[in-house]
């Protein structure tokens, strides 16, 4: 679809930028184009000359070396031991393995998580509830922040896991994982962090934050979709969720998706090396977008935390008197791709659990917009959104009964 303004398509079409980016694209949390440097490294792994990492012939040994290289690169992103990396098909699978896999090997029957987790964490917890575990869903403040003290109060003698995400993909708020980690460690309870939102954007060290299990997604690092990882400390016991030939130390059977895993490794390296410059650039663009929206759209309100307390590429707002669906449709017609911030909400029209948890009214929740910026976002794109959104909102308000 080449519906973008001429200026933006010319600009985006040049300079080695992925061809998929042909219009104003502010839904990087939904999907990120794969970095061309990553694609270049992946290509030989797709086109041949590479074996199965589990086979003993020389091509297999080379594949094994590439797999372990990717493991080291991914581990370096958050200061973990490479041997703790378990490659999966997605962050969702990694969250499932962390929660259900740990609960099944533990003797206690209680878990603590937050009310704003990704649905892969929440539904893993619901599944455990059905099978006899108890789960405490700790609430959040109006900006979506978990109170570490509430986590401490929720702990029981039979608590087997605390799982709190590093940042909300829906409202961008950074969670106090270092404080929660200290509390969990003091009680001897393993601590899992879904780090998908922060990876490559906020420095995170598993040792400094006392993290025992950590979830990553490849695509959120500008790597290929179809790969994710769970990192686990060596002493953590997990029951595998996918059974078979014992790949990934038996924690995740199935022949490794080597092209995607190698791509994820390169993406992790690039994210680590380029993080500071990229974050400064994204934060400036994001702040400009939020300022522009606040200034030019009456009645708009930011959801989540402000400034340095939120993800640098993330802008989310609510408009209490306009439906997000209508805004997104109108923006789309003008070449702007954004989202409501929640896939569940997009499917059912129900207010998302995150917006409910931060106390949004029904009307506000229905007018929730999420703009996520990325590696190829330009000032021109931001300017176009700041021009377009007020026109769209004004038009919809005039049409409203």
């Amino acid at each position, binding site marked *: 679809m080449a519906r973008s303004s001429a200026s933006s398509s010319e600009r985006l079409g040049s300079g080695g930028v992925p061809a998929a980016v042909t219009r104003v694209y502010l839904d990087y949390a939904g999907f990120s184009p794969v970095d061309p440097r990553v694609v270049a490294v992946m290509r030989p792994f797709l086109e041949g000359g590479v074996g199965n990492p589990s086979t003993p012939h020389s091509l297999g040994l080379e594949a094994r070396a590439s797999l372990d290289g990717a493991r080291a690169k991914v581990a370096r992103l958050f200061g973990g031991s490479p041997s703790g990396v378990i490659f999966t098909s997605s962050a969702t699978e990694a969250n499932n393995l962390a929660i259900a896999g740990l609960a099944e090997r533990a003797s206690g029957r209680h878990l603590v998580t937050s009310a704003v987790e990704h*649905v892969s964490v929440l539904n893993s917890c619901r599944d455990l509830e059905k099978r006899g575990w108890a789960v405490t869903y700790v609430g959040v403040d109006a900006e979506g922040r978990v109170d570490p003290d509430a986590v401490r109060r929720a702990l029981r003698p039979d608590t087997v896991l605390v799982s709190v995400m590093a940042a909300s993909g829906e409202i961008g708020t950074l969670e106090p994982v270092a404080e929660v980690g200290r509390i969990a460690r003091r009680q001897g309870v393993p601590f899992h962090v879904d780090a998908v939102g922060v990876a490559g954007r906020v420095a995170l060290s598993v040792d400094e934050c006392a993290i025992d299990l950590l979830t990553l997604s490849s695509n959120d690092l500008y790597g290929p979709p179809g790969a994710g990882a769970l990192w686990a400390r060596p002493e953590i016991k997990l029951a595998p969720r996918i059974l078979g030939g014992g790949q990934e130390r038996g924690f995740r059977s199935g022949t490794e998706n080597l092209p995607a895993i190698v791509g994820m490794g390169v993406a992790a390296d690039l994210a680590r090396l380029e993080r500071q410059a990229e974050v400064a650039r994204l934060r400036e663009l994001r702040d400009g977008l939020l300022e522009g929206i606040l200034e030019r759209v009456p009645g708009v309100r930011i959801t989540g935390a402000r400034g340095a307390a939120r993800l640098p590429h993330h802008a989310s707002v609510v408009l209490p008197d306009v439906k997000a669906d209508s805004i997104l449709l109108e923006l789309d017609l003008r070449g702007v791709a954004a989202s409501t911030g929640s896939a569940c909400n997009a499917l059912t029209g129900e207010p998302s659990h995150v917006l409910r948890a931060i106390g949004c009214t029904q009307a506000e929740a229905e007018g929730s917009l999420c703009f996520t910026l990325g590696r190829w976002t330009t000032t021109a794109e931001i300017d176009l959104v700041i021009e377009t959104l007020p026109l769209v909102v004004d038009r919809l308000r005039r049409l409203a009964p």
Partner: protein
Amino acid sequence: MVVTPDKKLDCLGLYCPIPILKIREAMKALAVGQTIEMLSDDPASDADMKSWAARTGHDLLETDKHGAVFRFLVRKTR
């Protein structure tokens, strides 16, 4: 009075948002005044169904729970 539902919907084993998505689809095939019984064992479905009924305006006539299984009876209002 026991209401015999006009339609039944089995959502056992499914999790949010799928049960809500399925009942929303199923409602389209009902006439106003007809009823549907939905079974779900997602612990979140009680809150989700209440919220969905309040938002859409359909009547949530009955909610009960047998073991881990919720049973919802809904009448289409519009």
